[in-house]
C-alpha cells in the first residue's frame, strides 16, 4: 500500500464512455494482485472531495492499468486527463481473487459486465500463469459496451460476449450466457465482477450447480482503507451475519458468504 502522488499517465485509450489508463507507478504495479483496486484523486481542490475506487485492469513491474466507465462527475473529470498528466493514487488496496498453484489444470469462468470487466484481464493473465484455463464471459448492453473484446482475443484468451440488445454475440444477459455454458461444461470455479443484480444472479446459478464462485463487489467508497465504514455489504460472519467493509474484507468475497437484500 503506497501513496503515489505523482504517477505519470503514460497512455489513454477510449471507446465512448470507457477509458483505459496506463500509469507509470512501478511500486503499486509490483505489489498489485488481481481483484485489488486503487483510490484515485479526482480534483486538486475540495470538489469533488473524495477519491474514486477503480479496479486494477493489469499490473506489472513498470506500473498499472485502470479501466473505467464515466459514471458521474468524478469519473468524467478523470476521463479528461491526457498522457503526461499526473495522477495521485493510493493502493493497491483490498483483497483480490484467489489465484494459486491449486488452480493448475483447472477451468475458470470469468464473468464481467460492463466496467466490471476491468479486473478480469489481470486475473486471466494470472490464471494462465498458474496453469489454469480461463474462459472469459463479457457482457454489455450494446456492442459498444464490450470494447475490450479484441484485447482479450489478441491475448489468446477464450472469450464469449453477450449484449442485451443482441447487437453482438449472445443476445441477453451475460449471466444467462455463463449459465448456459455452465450447464454444458461445469467449470471448477467462477470469478465475477459487476453490479449487484448481476452478482446475485450469478451466485445463485453457481450455487445451484455446485460451483464455487468469487464475486468482486462494487460500492461507493469514502476512503478505501477501512477507516470510514461507508462501503459495507451484508455477509455471513462467524456469529451470524453483519455489515462488512467491502474495501477491507473485499472487494472479492466468496459467493456463498454474500447475502442479498430481499
Amino acid at each position, binding site marked *: *500500500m503506497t*501513496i503515489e502522488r505523482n504517477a505519470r499517465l503514460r497512455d489513454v485509450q477510449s471507446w465512448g464512455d470507457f477509458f483505459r489508463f496506463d500509469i507509470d507507478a512501478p511500486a503499486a504495479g509490483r505489489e498489485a494482485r488481481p481483484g485489488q483496486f486503487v483510490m484515485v*484523486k479526482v480534483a486538486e481542490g*475540495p*470538489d*469533488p*472531495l*473524495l*477519491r474514486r475506487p477503480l479496479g486494477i485492469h493489469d499490473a506489472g513491474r513498470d506500473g498499472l492499468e485502470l479501466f473505467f466507465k464515466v459514471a458521474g462527475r*468524478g469519473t468524467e473529470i478523470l476521463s479528461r486527463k491526457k498522457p503526461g498528466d499526473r495522477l495521485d493514487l*493510493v493502493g493497491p488496496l483490498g483483497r483480490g481473487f484467489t489465484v494459486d498453484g491449486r488452480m493448475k489444470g483447472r477451468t475458470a469462468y470469468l464473468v464481467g459486465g460492463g466496467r466490471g470487466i476491468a479486473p478480469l484481464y489481470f486475473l486471466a493473465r494470472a490464471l494462465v500463469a498458474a496453469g489454469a484455463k480461463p474462459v472469459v464471459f463479457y457482457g454489455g448492453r450494446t456492442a459498444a459496451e464490450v470494447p475490450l473484446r479484441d484485447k482479450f482475443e489478441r491475448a489468446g484468451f477464450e472469450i464469449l460476449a453477450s449484449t442485451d440488445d443482441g447487437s453482438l454475440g449472445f443476445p441477453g444477459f451475460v449471466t444467462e450466457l455463463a449459465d448456459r455454458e455452465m450447464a454444458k461444461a461445469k467449470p471448477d470455479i467462477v470469478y465475477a465482477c459487476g453490479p449487484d443484480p448481476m452478482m446475485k444472479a450469478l451466485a445463485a446459478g453457481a450455487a445451484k450447480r455446485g460451483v464455487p464462485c468469487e464475486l468482486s463487489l462494487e*460500492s*461507493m*467508497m*469514502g*476512503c478505501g*482503507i*477501512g*477507516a*470510514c*465504514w*461507508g*462501503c*459495507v*455489504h451484508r455477509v455471513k460472519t462467524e456469529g451470524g451475519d*453483519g*455489515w462488512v467493509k467491502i474495501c477491507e474484507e473485499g472487494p472479492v468475497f466468496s459467493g456463498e458468504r454474500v447475502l442479498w437484500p430481499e
Partner: protein
Amino acid sequence: MAGMTKTVDLTVDLGFLKLRNPVLAASGTFGYGLEFEPYLDLEKLGGFVVKGLYYGPREGNPPPRLVETAGGLINAIGLQGIGVEAFAAKVLPKLRRFDTAVIVNVCGADDDEYAAVVEFLDRQEGLAAYELNISCPNVKKEGACPALSPRATFDLVRRLKAASRRPLITKLSPNVTSIVEIAQAAEEAGTDAVALVNTFLAMAVDLETRRPKLGNVYGGLSGPAIKPIALRMVHQVASRLRVPVIGMGGIMTGADALEFLVAGAAAVEVGTASFVDPDAAVRVVAGIERWCEAHGVGAVREVVGTLELN
C-alpha cells in the same frame, strides 16, 4: 543565519494533557488508528481519537451510508463498531506501543451505557482521555442526542466526570440554537475540555427516484463545506469558556488548522481529510510548522486566541 531553521515549538498543553503538537485525528475518520499505520507515523500526531465505542459490538445503519455533496460528505454509518471489550483485547495492546495520545470516543445508548464504557476503560492502561460522543446524529431518530439539550448534557457529563479517572472532552453538536449554552452546561458539569463541531444533520435526495440517497434518510455533513460555520462556533465557544476548546470542521490544511487556533481553539482535530489523504493529519502538522517558520512564530501556542476583532 542562512541555512539555519529555527525549530518551532509545536507542543500544546491542554492543562490535563500535553500534546506533541495541536493536531489530533478525529473520531470516526481514523478507524482504530492502526488502519493508518501504513500511511503515516502515528507518533508525528498530537494524538488520535479512535472510532466511537459502545459497550458491545454495534451493527450500524443499512447502506447507502455515504453520499458526496459539494465540498463535503454526508455519512450515516451509525457507529458500527467492535465494542470496548474487543477493543481492549485486540486493538489497545497494539496502540500502547505508540508514543502518542490515544483518546477513546465514548458512546452509549443511554447514560448507564456511557458509564459502563468509562468504567470498563478506566481499568485499561494506555489511554490519555475520553471524548464523550454525545453528538452523533446517526443513531437515533432525526439526530436526537444528549448534546441537543443543556440539561441532558449537564447530567451526563457530571455523572461521567465523577465516575472517570481520566480527563473528559465533551464533543458537541452544531445542530442546536445556541452551542454556547450547551458548552457552558458541559463546563459547569466539570468537563475538562470541549470538542466541536460534530457533523451537521443533513440529507441528499435522488431526484430520479425521489428517494433519500442515504439508507438512514438523514446523515451528518462534514468536510470543507462546513468549515466557516465550525470556525464561527469555535470562536463563540472559545470566547466564553474557561476550559480548552478543540476545534474541528473541514480542516484540510495547516492554514485551516491555524485559523481554528487563531479563533481560540487550543488544539484541532482533522477528520474527513483523512479519507481523502490517509496522511492528511501529518500534512496538517507540517503545514502548521512551515507557516510558523515563515511568520517567525517560535511556539504554535502563541497563535491561540489571537483573533483581533474589527
